[in-house]
Each structure stands twice: as C-alpha cells, then as structure tokens.
C-alpha cells in the first residue's frame, strides 16, 4: 500500500501545534525576561532613589555655601543588594563639589524635584543613575544642588540572567510538554479515522455492507459518501454478476440444445459423412463451453488473489471432495483415481475456492490426457512445514515443454492438438500457488505421464 506522506493530516496537525507551542514558549520567555528586568530595575531604582534622597536630606545652607554631611548609611543600603560599585556626584550651581565630576548629567528638561532614574555608560561600564535636585538657601538666595548616586549594573545583570535562564528552561519545558500533548492529540483526533480505515480495510471481498458504528461529526460526510460509493459498487457488481449469469445462461442453454440434438441425430444415422460432421459439431460446442469456463475461472482467480477470503481449510476434505466429484468423469474412460490422504485433517490458512479451483484443474488435466484404463494418483502429504498435493498420471507427459512454458497464459503443450483445451488450466494453478506463497512444479513422471505438485505452506 502506498503512503501519502505529503498529505499526512497527522503530520500537518502536529507541525501546526508545534509551531503554536514554539511561539508561545518564545513569548513566555520574553515576557518573563521583561518582567524580571523591570522588577530588578525597579528594586535597584528604589534603593538608588532612597540613597539619593538620604543625601539630599542632609543638604544645609551655610554661610559660605552648601554644607553636606554624606550619610554612609546611604551607601551601605546600596551595597546590601550587591557587590556593585557605587558612585556619587553633588553639583552646586553647575559645579561639582564632591564625587565623580564625569558622572553624566541627567537628561535635559526633566523635572528633578523627585528622583529621576536613567541608565548611561560610565567609564568602562554601564551604570544606573538616580538624580534629584534640591534648592538650598545660601545667603538668602536659592542655589540649586543636584545630587546624583550611581551604581554599576553587574548584580542586576546577574539576577536578570539567572531569571532568563529559568525562563528559558520554563519555555523549553512548556514546549516539550506541548509537543507530547500535540502528538497525543493528533493520535486521538485521528483515531476514528484509523478505526474507520481499519474496519473498511479488513473487509473480505464479498463484504459490501455500508459502514456503520459511531463516527465523529466531521467524518460523517466522508462516511456518507463512502457508503454511497459502496452501494453504487454493490449495485454495479450485482448487475455485472446478474449479467454474466444471464449471458452464460443465454449462451449455454442453446449450446446444450445443439449438443443434445447432435447426439440424438448421431443415434439416428449410420451415414459416415453425417456422423463426422456431427462429431465436429459436438467437439466445437465442447471447446467453446470449456474455454468460456476456463476464462471465467481465470477471472475469478485473478480477482480473488487480490481480495482473498482466507479461512482455515482442511486440505484432506478438499482433496477427497474434488476426487469424488471428478470420479464419474474419470470412470467414463475406465480411469482409476487413487486417492491417498493422511489419517488426520491437514489444515492450512487459505482461500477454499482458489485451492479447489487449482486442484480441480490439475485433476481435469490429468483425466483429459490419460488414456483409457489409466491410473491417476492424487496424494496429499505433509512434511517440514508444508502440504503437498501431488497429482500423477499415466498420460502423455510434457514431451519436452517446461513447466514455466505450460503455465503461461493460453500456452499449450506441443503434443495436445487433438485434445480440447484453453491453455489456462495450469496458469490458474500457478497463480493460486503464488497467491498462497506456495509453489507449483510440473515434471515428467518416471515410466511415462506427468507429475504435478502443488506445495502450500502450513500456517
């Protein structure tokens, strides 16, 4: 059976679910990172702000200028959260009076009444800076004093990085769980489809009932059209079968009349010429009837090898039945059928019609080619995992033709022109053997005649 991977619903479904899961995982990762970034920054900002305010609160206007007593508690507050370096700068009237004069100014045009936070590169690193401005009264005039406290951001970065790692792990975990769930989902979604396919696929060739049982709503249109198709197929098959049966009836019934009348005429005449004509007529009727049967049999075999209806079958009963049915035909020519079967049943797994058809063809062939008073042996033997049906006769043998040639369609032996035949009998046998993983061999028998062997595996 071909697999149409390009159109696999399961693959498409899983792929789409995986894409959604991946997008969600990435979004999750980035949102966690952003939140973590913000949280860490806010924490740092509030400490920086508190430190800045603590310094600003110590500003006093003095006689000569601004007096400041930097409280070291402000810095200890900062160092409590990390090992980052801390910088400060106090600017009075545009002049740095203490701290690091190269600490960058706050952005222009912002109100500095409450602390303003900004990030900026400083020296060889990045710093977070809090800035606040206070007006200090010096000699009755108001002097603006800018207080800035900065801290490097390694600690913050470390915390963010560790949170990002966790976010990544979380994202991956989420993705993995989503992937497993999407596989399970795809399987469970497709289960009804597989069940449906299985129930249709397991059917035998004769089973053309509509598909029933619970079906998901989405599959109902499919099942409906499948059932529609099945009923059309059944109608077509029934029509074909009826047609074939009627065609056979309409052809064979007049042929039977011709044959019967010819036989009656033969009884009533002693004229040699008339008799020869009647003989030819009867032979022609026989020939056409036989060819029709063989063609029909061959068609049945070809159809059934595709759509086998396997069951446990007992070869012993089958061999005995075929022999019993063929006995009157053999008896007409004083041919003895010698049947040898084991004492116990020989069961194999196979299609009864196919095997019966093959065996019947073998026996018919032997009867056809064996002279009056001959002997045909039909033996069933079991050895090393296979059952052999061996048909031997005292007929004319293969006369040089190989088994391979004789099993070709419409191919007949070189020594059989005087016997009615279609050249399909052995083809049927070989096809049936192949359909059952068996083998068919044909050879000349020692002492004259042929020996045909149909081997079927015991399963």
């Amino acid at each position, binding site marked *: 059976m071909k697999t149409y991977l390009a159109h696999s619903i399961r693959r498409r479904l899983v792929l789409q679910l995986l894409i959604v899961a991946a997008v969600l995982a990435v979004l999750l990762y980035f949102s966690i990172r952003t939140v973590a970034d913000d949280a860490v920054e806010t924490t740092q900002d509030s400490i920086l702000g508190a430190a800045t305010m603590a310094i600003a609160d110590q500003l006093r206007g003095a006689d000569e200028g601004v007096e400041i007593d930097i409280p070291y508690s402000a810095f200890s507050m900062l160092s409590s959260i990390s090992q980052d370096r801390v910088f400060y700068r106090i600017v009075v009237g545009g002049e740095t009076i203490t701290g690091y004069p190269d600490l960058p100014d706050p952005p222009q045009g912002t109100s500095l009444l409450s602390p303003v936070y900004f990030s900026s590169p400083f020296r060889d690193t990045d710093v977070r800076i809090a800035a606040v401005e206070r007006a200090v009264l010096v000699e009755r005039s108001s002097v603006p004093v800018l207080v800035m406290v900065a801290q490097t951001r390694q600690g913050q970065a470390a915390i963010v990085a560790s949170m990002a790692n966790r976010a990544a792990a979380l994202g991956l975990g989420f993705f993995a769980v989503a992937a497993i769930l999407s596989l399970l989902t795809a399987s469970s979604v497709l289960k009804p489809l597989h069940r449906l396919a299985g129930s249709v696929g397991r059917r035998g060739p004769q089973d053309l009932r509509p598909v029933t049982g619970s079906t998901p709503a989405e599959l109902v249109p499919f099942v409906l059209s499948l059932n529609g198709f099945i009923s059309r197929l059944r109608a077509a098959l029934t029509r074909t079968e009826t047609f*074939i*049966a*009627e065609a*056979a*009836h309409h*052809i*064979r*019934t*007049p*042929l*039977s*009349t*011709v*044959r*019967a*009348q010819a*036989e*009656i005429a*033969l*009884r009533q005449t*002693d004229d*040699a010429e008339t*008799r020869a004509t009647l*003989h030819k007529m*009867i*032979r022609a*009727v*026989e020939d056409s*009837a036989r060819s*029709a*049967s063989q063609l*029909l*049999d061959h068609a*049945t075999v070809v159809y059934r090898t595709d759509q086998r209806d396997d069951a446990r079958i007992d070869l012993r009963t089958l061999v005995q039945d075929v022999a019993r*049915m063929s*006995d*009157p*035909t053999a*008896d*007409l*020519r*004083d041919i003895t059928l010698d049947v040898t079967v084991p004492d116990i049943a020989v069961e194999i797994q196979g299609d*009864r*019609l196919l095997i*019966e*058809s093959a065996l*019947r063809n073998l026996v018919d062939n032997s009867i*056809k080619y064996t002279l*009056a*008073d001959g002997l045909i042996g039909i033996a069933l033997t079991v050895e090393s995992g296979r059952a052999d049906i061996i048909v031997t006769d005292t007929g004319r043998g293969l006369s040089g033709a190989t088994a391979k040639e004789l099993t070709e369609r419409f191919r007949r032996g070189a020594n059989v022109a*005087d*016997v*009615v035949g279609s050249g399909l009998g052995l083809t049927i046998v070989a096809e049936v053997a192949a359909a059952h993983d068996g083998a068919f061999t044909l050879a000349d028998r020692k002492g004259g005649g042929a020996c045909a062997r149909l081997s079927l595996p015991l399963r």
Partner: protein
Amino acid sequence: MRFLLVEDNADLGQSVQKRLAMDGHAVDWAQSLADAEDHLGVASYDLILLDIMLPDGDGRDFLAAHRRAQRDTPVIVMTARSAVSDRVALLDTGADDYITKPFDFAELEARCRAVLRRRGGAAQTQISFADLTFDPLSATVTVGDEVRELRNRELRLFEILVAAPGRIHSKAQLCDRLFSFAEAVSDNAIEVYVGRLRKKLAGSAAKIETVRGVGYRLTDT
C-alpha cells in the same frame, strides 16, 4: 431410471427428454418450479434434474426448500454458470452434484449413477437376461453364483446391448456411446471392449455375436 426434468427452455427440455428416453429412461418434464411441485406431489422419482434460472424463481431456492422439507430425492443441478464459487455454493445448498451446460449425456448418466450409488441405491434396478442377472448400479453381472464386476465401459456396453437384445448395433453407434467426443478413436476401438465383456460373460448363455461388416448383437443361446 425415472427422472423429473425441471427446465424452462422448450428446445433444451425436449432434447434432454428425448435423449434420455433413447437410453430407456422415463422422463417427466416440468417447465416451472410450480409445475415441478405438482409432479413431485403425485409421483416419485429416482432423480431430479434441476435448472437454476426458471421463470417463477431460482432453482436454488427450490433446492433449499426441498432439503428443508426432508425430501430425499437426489438432485443434480444443471447449471449454466461454471464459476468455482457457484459450484461450491450449489453443493452447500444441498445439491448432490451438478453438471455444467452444455453437458455430455454419458457424463450425466455417470453422475446420476454415482449419486444413486452414494445414496445407497434406489429401487430394484436389476435386469435379468438369459441365465444372468445384471445390476447397473453396482456394476455387476451374476453368472451362476459368481458375481463379476464390470468396468465402466463394459457396463455401458452391456447396458446398450441388453436394452435391445437381438438387435444389431453398429460399431460406430457403439463408439459414440462409449467414447467421449473429445477422443479421437477409430471404430475398431470398440473391439477391445467387446472382447473384455465377452470374458466377463464367459460361461453364461448370453453371447455377444459379431455380425460381420455390420456390428454386434446380444443373443441368448
């Protein structure tokens, strides 16, 4: 033998009836299933020859009903269908045997005989001639106390001769009835079987006489 022939085709029915009558059988001919039921109601038969496609129904349904009713008259189906599946289905329905149209009357007779033999034999079938008894069903002649088995061709040959004692049968006529039309045989092939039958009849008053240039006849010496 007494046959009930169920066949709707007039030409074929007539030919079969005529042909079987030639071999000394009594044949009642029914052209429909209803007709067949009527016949079965008033007479008993050794064998029913049943067609499948009939104007008032399917022969297989008739066969199934026949078996359900526990009537044990053997049935041989004359089928126009030859597919293996049809044959298997027929036997499963309860047919004793089947024969595919167009058929060889010799084969039909052989099948009838096989069915009757399998069923344990019908009524009295023995024929007495001169000082011997002939039983076609068991294929034996009894000469004195000695029971002699006949092979199929010897049996058929004796049947032909004993049906019309004293009448001369030509070699050609005998050949037609003994050999299948698929076989190419010369008229002289019959001599072998006449020879064999003479051996089986040895010691009895029944003799097969050669009428030179014409054929053979059975006489009671």
